[in-house]
């Protein structure tokens, strides 16, 4: 039953006969594969790296864990960002702006 080799994005294009029974997901931890960023309908957040002071307030506030924090600074995971704009509102230095997707 489990088809571990096929990525979720491909699996969701399969015909109904190949759909897992009852829509059961046979691989654990697969929610990261699901692109909730596709639900974003209006604008996406864009970070001006020159203004960013790396305070991580956006990282704390993001309800979708779509702010990625690493040594380079702040980047946005557009595959999971739903475009709610909380980060843009909360940024104390206005480094995040909402732009057309």
């Amino acid at each position, binding site marked *: *039953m489990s088809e571990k080799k096929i990525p979720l994005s491909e699996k969701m294009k399969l015909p109904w006969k190949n759909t897992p029974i009852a*829509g059961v997901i046979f691989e654990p931890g697969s929610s990261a594969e699901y692109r909730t960023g596709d639900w974003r309908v209006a604008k996406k957040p864009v970070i001006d790296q020159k203004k960013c002071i790396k305070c991580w307030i956006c990282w704390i506030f993001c309800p979708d864990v779509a702010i990625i924090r690493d040594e380079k600074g702040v980047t946005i995971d557009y595959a999971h960002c739903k475009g709610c704009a909380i980060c843009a509102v909360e940024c104390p230095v206005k480094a995040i702006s909402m732009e057309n997707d």
Partner: protein
Amino acid sequence: MFYKRREEYNEVIIPYQGEGITVRPQELAGMGGNEAVAYAAKQANVDVVAAYPITPQTIMVERFSEYVANGEVDTEFVCVESEHSAMSACVGASVTGARVMTSTASQGLALMHEVLYVASSLRCPIVMMVANRALSAPINIHGDHSDMMGSRDCGWIQIYVENPQEAYDWTLQALKIAEDPEISLPASVNLDGFTVSHAMEDLNLLSDGQVKEFLPPRKPVFKVEPENPNTVGAFAMPDYYYEVKRLQEEAMRKVPEVLVKVTKEYEKTSQRKYGIIETFDMDDAETAILSMGSTAGTVRSVVRQLREKGRKVGAVKLWLYRPFPSEELTSAICDLKALAVIDRAMSFGAPYGPLCSDVASILQDCESKPKIFNAMCGLGGRDISSDDIRIMFDEADQIARTGVVRDRIKFVGVRE
């Protein structure tokens, strides 16, 4: 208990004319429908029962909890605070791979409604006895089909039984059909409230060994287990939901084939023959009555009386209501001149009651369409007498003669 083993009956041979079938003596017991289902659940070694008592189903839960208390079964009996919780517990138990049964009626079934869909969509082969009872208001505890017809489209296999013997036999068969890996869908066994649920009759029982052989432990298609984690009941968006539902419908379409296979196997063990529909005197019949549940017995009795007077009448009984046996039914009714379809539930404002609507929708498959009319009767436990059935046959005969259906729905037995 008084209905357990009656030694003097152990040597009784059940008469049966089947070919090449060994007739074994069977145990006889006096049981009502509720007790018959509880006894079948005991023999089937059900793993989990979560149920809440409601008239006219109470005795089933009561008897089964006695088996649990006496240590006659090792079933996990979950005491819940409502039917909604009962069905939720059943779904949870079923996805772990357990054999699960429950039972309810009327308002209880209505309270379960949303979870019924979860059970069928998550492909939980739960078997539920429904002691069919009228829905409020006015509050009424007696038999009609309003409750199950209200949950008609919930994706459950629906079987209607005529008497306690059928209730016992179909409970065992329903477990096997529901748990078939090709199907894996829940099934309801419907007993007319009081008429079947409480009527005490002589029952032929299989031995525990025969049941064990007929019904081996369930082999689930999938199950939740810590060693092999998976997600059951996940969210599905417009890009995925439809495919899951299409797959569910495919399982439903395979039911008749599996049902026939299971009934044949059961016949070899029990010497009792079941199937999708039952026909009576239909070979040369010009008019007939289609019914489900306990009414079918009254109809057959009237058919015998009318046949003696030379009238060409017949009777059809549905055992399987969902999936609807379109092919079997068209081959039985297409050559008739007129057919009365008995409904024991209203579908307010609809052209016909629920069963008659289904029958009307398959008539387009008939080359010569019989005229049909809907005989509404037996609501809220109103008696369905032989005279009522005769009125239906008279109406059908008149329609056959004149070709005119005066009323789509004839309300039989209501005070005019």
